[in-house]
């Protein structure tokens, strides 16, 4: 059996969960990459019409949400660091902070959306279309699709975190904190790109 041990575990095998999450992240990044590439092509095609529309997005909310997500990335990595030392209470505190950040992000997003919708910028923007600005309405379709898809990922990450927390409370499956954390970092870094693309570059 000792020979079995020496043969079976290579010195630097990637833990199974980490490897799976890396591959999942790779796939997710290409999904967003395709969407961002499609956005960028249209953005470069209609530079003036789209920057006119992008001026209507709220840089304040976008910037605030970026800070929230950067901080939540920090808090989940602290939860992971606590999990490697099996400090269950600390893990729960840091994870709750992260979920709170996610909630704050979504609340901000809702306020921001409602402001934009009240100005007539919706998924199809009928007011822009009636004014003959079809190209401008396409910007808002992209805006809602990209931020909406990202928001869905935030929500999914929060649900996953709640499930992981239920296990952590019983002291089980502490390694999952790291995995859900890696997913959360991916959500964060997609936002790092969405923010300049949609909000700053005007």
């Amino acid at each position, binding site marked *: 059996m000792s*020979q*079995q041990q020496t*043969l*079976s575990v290579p010195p630097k*095998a*990637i833990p*199974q969960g980490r*490897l*799976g999450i890396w*591959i*999942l992240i*790779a*796939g*997710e*990044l*290409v*999904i*967003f*990459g*395709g*969407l961002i*590439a*499609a956005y960028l*092509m*249209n953005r470069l095609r*209609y530079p003036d*019409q789209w920057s006119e529309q992008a001026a209507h997005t709220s840089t304040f909310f976008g910037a605030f949400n970026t800070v929230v997500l950067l901080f939540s990335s920090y808090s989940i990595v602290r939860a992971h660091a606590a999990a490697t030392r099996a400090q269950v209470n600390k893990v729960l505190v840091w994870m709750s902070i992260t979920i709170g950040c996610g909630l704050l992000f979504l609340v901000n997003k809702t306020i921001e959306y409602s402001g934009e919708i009240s100005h007539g910028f919706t*998924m*199809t923007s009928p007011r822009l*279309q009636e004014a003959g600005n*079809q*190209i401008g*309405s*396409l910007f808002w*379709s*992209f805006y809602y*699709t990209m931020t909406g*898809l990202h928001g869905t990922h935030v929500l999914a990450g929060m649900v996953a975190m709640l499930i992981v927390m239920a296990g952590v409370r019983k002291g089980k499956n502490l390694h999952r904190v790291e995995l859900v954390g890696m997913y959360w970092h991916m959500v964060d870094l997609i936002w790092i790109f969405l923010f300049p693309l949609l909000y700053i570059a005007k």
Partner: protein
Amino acid sequence: MGQAIHLNGNGHHEQSFWTKYLFSTDHKTIGMQYIITGLFMAAIGGFLAYVFRMNLAFPGEAIPLFGELGPQQYNMLVTNHGMIMVLWVAMPILVSGLGNLLIPTMIGTDDMAFPTVNMLSYWIFLLSSVVLLASFFVPGGGFAGGWTLYPPLSAGAYADTSPDFFTALFSGTSLFILAVALEIVSMLMGGINFLVTTINKRAPGMSAFKMPVMVWFLCIASLDFMFSVAPLVAGAVMLLFDNILGTGFYDPVRGGDPVLFQHLFWFFGHPEVYVILLPALGVIGEIITVFSRKPLFAYRTIVKLSLIAAVLAIVVWAHHQFIAGIDPRMATFFSVGTIIISIPFAGVFLSYMATLWGGSIRFSAAMIWALGFIGLFLIGGLTGLFLGSNTFDIYAHDTYFVVAHFHYTLFPIVFFAFFAAFYYWFPKFVGKQLNEKLGKIHFWLTFVFFNGTFFLLFFNGLMGQHRRVHDYSLFSNVIQEPYITFEKISTVCAILLIVSQFIFLYNLVISLRKKERAPSNPWNAATLEWQTSSPPPHGNFPVPVKVYHGPYEYSNPSFSLDYVPQNYDERIMDTESKQDQYEPTADIISTT
């Protein structure tokens, strides 16, 4: 033996019928579920093909078993035939089905890395099949805009007639897009599982170049699928929004561009061909080495060539769009890339030929299916070379030449390679031997009628018959005599092709009713899956295996047997314990 029983029982409790056959997390059960579902969908796809082929040969007449067929219904049948055969037959059977059955057994482990994700993946796949079949029966009928889903036919084409959200959501088009998206999600989950399993769960001693070439090809295929399909996921979301919310991503009137969707689709659609080709080549590689009793020629080169092909596959997609108005400079680039990508596959084929050269070939049923694959796929691949050149493609695009080329590549990949795999691995995973003679009859009938169905269509295409016209009697000035007869011959052969599959079903039934069990290694193969009982127990290997040999060590003169099992350890085994190791069939199973 006592130790073996203990290990086998370790952690595997008694299972009820539901957990054993339906909600199973065992990779073998899931693999068979995929294959059974895939064959069921193949029957539906085959029936659709029968209906529209009848319409093409005898336009305007009522079709037996179906009735009258109008142009809209004809389009619906063609569309769904295409998508079912690619996404609901080829993918589940070749990638998910064979991958699930073979990866853990070939690399010598007990199960997939994430068994629950694996089960979930199958159930999402089943849901997607149900959604697809449901889309036939919604008001307005199923989606009829061609299997490539091009807008505007797929995006908001019904916007004027169904303005409200739920009508749009439950239209045939939206359900079709949803089904495709679910199917993709399911296959992505399967792909993650395959990659993690192969990277992390190999048996001790199973280094990368001791893996059978099938495992390599399945992993490369999963990787290619994952990266190529992801932009289409985003594209499908945009298409769905165009349909149900009325956005204009692909609507030129609103600043969008339908060519964007064509790019998103073919960025997936072209690598998809290689995604299903690679497992098929893996099957052929396994079978021809066993039945010619020779090591696979240039094993490492084959793996490297397929890696090169996988990278090239991602950058040649736009050769499907030469007449879509793409940039002519890019068309040249894609044309050259398409012709270059034939080089790695030609290398793989030559290696297979060299493997056959001088071998002691046994023409078993599995072997002749494999040889049939090589011959037919060669025709498909060579006609692909002409189509890859954009000067010829502009002439032949959307004619029956393309249809014939496509079926000469995909039919051997999906059916010849699958049946080869089926006749080869059936004794392993079901535990009964199939009837060889019926298998050979099945092969010859399929081979003859397949060629009868599609070979003449090359000529119809070259004379200019367009593939999307449902009734050519309306254009009698375009298509004339020999070609109308060719259509009729093709239809008759297609019906006979479908009918000859009943031999396979008959063979399956009588083999399942047989009493005697298959031996654990009926073909004297060296790879790991044959070194356990037939079928493998839950957990696959009663004794954890260690790997000492490559997968294709046949006819090695320094051994008494003509094959060296991968887990054969010459240092510690005498003849008696060897017997224990390699024939652990009946007694272990009966005691657990």
